[in-house]
């Protein structure tokens, strides 16, 4: 028995020596930090940074699905080609319009929702569950729900409008008994924006509520003691304090809306014609369905510099507001 332990000792001590050295090294913050951060950084490099540069390379090449090699440099030809397309012009316009409408709606509605949810009331848990529902469902399924609600023949909204005497022959909204929400250019875009507001409001509200609850209670109470009415407190204290988090909420919402193609794909399919097209869907149609990888990449890269600049400006602005 004793001899066997003696035989093993050198190996064991060598191993424990190594283990000790490793654990010593891990006591140094930078070594442990690098080890803990490394995997995430490597992953992001492999699956975000590399594809990002491939996207740039593709956008200046003539690669197609049939011949995907990036071997000939064509300069900005893809970018020039896409800007000539009617579908692209509509897509650019609509992406901007839908994003602006959504952001505007989110600013107003999330502020209202936050004022409600910052208070105490009975059944708050249930309200929170129900309120989060639109955000909890996958976007494609949310779009399908709205597709049914806005159906050209069986929309319950049309049915209610007809019953109220607002829609149908001899009523303010016209002789037809249906509004055909998704079949008209502007009504279609408005519907897409509305669905985007509906599905992103819960997230935006959580973001803004976080900021609202960070406002020191004493500041609100002091203002009330000083005799300020509710709206005075809202506009003088709450809204200015919320400005930085509203910017974060706007950024999140705008990114979610501008990069999502499923709501448009399912609701209007970019129609009628190309009039309801948006950038991500157009990039998918050109890049995958028509197989022109170069043009697809050019379309999806088109807004990136604008987004990047807008985000940096917005975050710096939020940063400054927050410091004051």
């Amino acid at each position, binding site marked *: 028995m004793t001899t066997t332990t003696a035989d093993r000792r050198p190996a064991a001590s060598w191993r424990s020596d190594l283990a000790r050295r490793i654990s010593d090294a891990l006591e140094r913050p*930078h070594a442990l930090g690098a080890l803990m951060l490394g*995997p*995430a950084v490597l992953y992001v490099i492999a699956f975000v940074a590399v*594809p990002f540069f491939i996207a740039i390379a593709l956008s200046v090449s003539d690669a197609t699905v049939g011949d995907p090699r990036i071997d000939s440099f064509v300069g900005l030809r893809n970018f020039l080609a896409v800007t000539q397309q009617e579908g692209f012009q509509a897509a650019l316009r609509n992406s901007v319009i839908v994003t602006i409408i959504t952001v505007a709606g989110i600013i107003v509605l999330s502020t209202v929702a936050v004022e409600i949810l910052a208070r105490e009331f009975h059944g708050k848990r249930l309200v929170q569950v129900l309120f989060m529902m639109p955000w909890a469902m996958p976007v494609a399924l949310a779009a399908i729900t709205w597709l049914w609600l806005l159906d050209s023949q069986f929309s319950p909204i049309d049915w209610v409008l007809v019953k109220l005497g607002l829609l149908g022959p001899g009523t303010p909204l016209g002789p037809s008994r249906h509004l055909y929400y998704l079949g008209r250019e502007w009504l279609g875009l408005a519907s897409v924006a509305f669905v985007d507001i*509906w599905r992103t409001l819960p997230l935006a509200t*959580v973001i803004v509520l976080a900021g609202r609850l960070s406002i020191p209670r004493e500041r609100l109470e002091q203002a009330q003691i000083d005799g300020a009415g509710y709206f005075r407190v809202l506009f003088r204290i709450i809204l200015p304090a919320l400005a930085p988090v509203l910017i974060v909420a706007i950024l999140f919402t705008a990114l979610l809306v501008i990069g999502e193609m*499923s709501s448009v794909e399912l609701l209007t399919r970019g129609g009628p014609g190309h009039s309801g097209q948006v950038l991500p869907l157009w990039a998918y149609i050109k890049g995958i369905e028509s197989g022109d990888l170069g043009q697809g990449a050019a379309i999806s890269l088109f807004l990136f510099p604008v987004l990047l600049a807008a985000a*940096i400006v917005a*975050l710096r602005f939020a940063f400054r507001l927050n410091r004051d």
Partner: protein
Amino acid sequence: MSRVDSRQLRLMGLYTAVVLLVLFAILPIAYATLTIFKKDSELFNPAANPFFFEQGPTLNHLAFLFGKTQFPVFLWNSAVIGVLVVAITLLLSVPAAYALARLTGRWGESSGMAIFLVYLIPPTLLFIPLFRIVVWLGVANTIWSLVLVLPTITVPFCTWLLLGFFRSIPRELDEAAMLDGHSRFGAFRRVVLPQARPGIGACVVFAFSLSLSNFIYSVTFVTESAARNISAGVPTELIRGDVYFWPSLMAATAIVAIPLGIAYGLLFDYLVRGFQSAETTAISEK
């Protein structure tokens, strides 16, 4: 007397507002749920009241969804993808966030904004090159393509959220644990990690639902019906040309949305707390 009246009035106003807010969120889902149990003859009768069951309810559409479509397969695929994406996300972003919050010094302090910028690169920009990478790795048309790629969305987001959480935990806690004889990593694992549980809970729900929700990758990388998830599978399987299987579509939606909604709602306060600390780090120096 009049004071009581004005208080009651204000309370009534609050509850009215609460009800309106809830209705805005759930009316569409409630209507969808109603549709599941409608008979076709009533559903497609323009004269029928869409909010009542004149001919009584039916379970045929649910039976169709589970028996005659690939929906159970999509559900299973989504669950597997979701669980694996959550696991990968936590394995990558929990240590990364802790490292950035505590270990990397000055360099880590400005990282909140840097991660945000990674988050800024949208899937629509990456899907074409990622498609090539997926094909090159030989995982196209399998669920593994999504398991591999979806953490690109969840890792930056969760790292950002957790970074705020770890920063809001006082440094003295780690230091005390290390004085008690824990190693640096031991202090993280045994003392700091349990404190960050709400943040991790928020990450789990977010990562799971974001993995379910992504459409563009699911449609691009997987064309085989048997490997699709619900986001890509439900629209393609239950919308056949011009034929929409409305009640079954609504059932598919409700079955996914209701449990996820409950999970989100129960974690609501954690989510708010997570954003509270994340916002302070994203838009301030410390």
